[in-house]
């Protein structure tokens, strides 16, 4: 049917198809994730990405043509990042009460996570773009991708690193805390939010509200810290 073919060619040149496909893939992924009982290994972002990647490859559609429509979704990341100020404000009282311990342990943990990741991939011969892309991997995705983009990294790669970090952190956090005898819920939440952002925090929230509140605080604060720290580390390491 030449009519259908023409319609397909027409759709590929406009934003409607990419935008619709993104929203549909997201809903399918959310449904699958709910069916899996929101298990630690299942992640709607990863599922939606997989669906779309397979669809692009199967139909021979270029990423550029897909992004023509998907950019409208992506644009909302900016205002969403700004909106993170609202949950951060709710955590300000918690923060003021333990300001020094929070700042000191987060600076140490945040620096250790970013620097060790950068040094390991650099030592194993990864190119600069990968070293930059992995640096903000402990931070919540909108901020991580922004940092990566600004410094000449690959934001898509950063998005994958952030997801993998979160999924690993969510799975390992509780047994690891048991091993290290980190029993304080405030310390657990802060560490999960600092090292593995929202995905690990969501897992700890199932155990304790206190841990969840400290995790939420750490996500926002670490976003700010990393945004300041990583450009300096990149300049220092990669000159």
């Amino acid at each position, binding site marked *: 049917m030449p009519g259908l073919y023409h319609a397909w060619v027409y759709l590929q040149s406009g934003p409607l198809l990419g935008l619709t496909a*993104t*929203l549909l893939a*997201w809903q399918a992924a959310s449904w699958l994730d709910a069916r899996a009982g929101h298990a630690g290994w299942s992640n709607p*972002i990863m599922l*939606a*990405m997989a669906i*779309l990647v397979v669809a692009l490859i199967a139909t021979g559609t270029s*990423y550029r043509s*897909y*992004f023509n429509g*998907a950019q409208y*979704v*992506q644009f*909302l*990341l*900016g*205002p*969403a990042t*700004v*909106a*993170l*100020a*609202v949950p*951060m*404000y709710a955590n*300000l009282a918690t923060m003021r009460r*333990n300001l*020094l311990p*929070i700042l*000191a*342990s987060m600076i140490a*943990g*945040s620096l*250790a*996570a970013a620097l*060790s*990741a950068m040094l*390991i991939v650099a030592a194993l011969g990864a*190119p600069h773009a990968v070293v930059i892309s*992995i640096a903000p991997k402990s931070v919540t995705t*909108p*901020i991580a991708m*922004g*940092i990566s983009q600004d410094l000449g990294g690959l934001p898509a790669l950063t*998005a994958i*690193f952030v997801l993998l970090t979160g999924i690993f*952190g969510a799975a*390992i956090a509780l047994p*690891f805390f048991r091993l*290290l005898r*980190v029993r*304080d819920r405030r*310390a657990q939440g*802060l*560490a999960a939010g600092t*090292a*593995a952002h929202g995905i690990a925090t969501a897992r700890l929230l199932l155990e304790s509200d206190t841990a969840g509140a400290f995790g939420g605080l750490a996500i926002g604060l670490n976003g*700010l810290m990393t*945004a*300041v720290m990583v450009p300096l580390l990149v300049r220092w390491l990669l000159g």
Partner: protein
Amino acid sequence: MVRALSLLLLCQLLGTVIARATGVPIPGPVFGLVLLLALLVARSGPDPELHSTAQGLLRHLGLLFVPAGVGVVNELGVLRANALAIAIALPISTLLGLAITGLAMQLLLRSER
């Protein structure tokens, strides 16, 4: 909703102007976040409209990452070429971050009392 969205965009816009004008390599929206946080402190909290708009945006935060994530189709080669380095760096750095933050926080909270 329009008013709250305008405020969010305005903060992002000002944040981007600050980032560009000063040449500081921090994403504009992060400056925007700080501006909004300062505003919330000055006004002692978000109004209901801003609260619900922010919640609405953040509830579907995952969706907003998908387009950039799909960009991985163009990076499969880089990913494959550096798979070993990545497979070692991600778990080790995450464990270090968890251990150092958690142990330091627990120690400091104990010593504060």
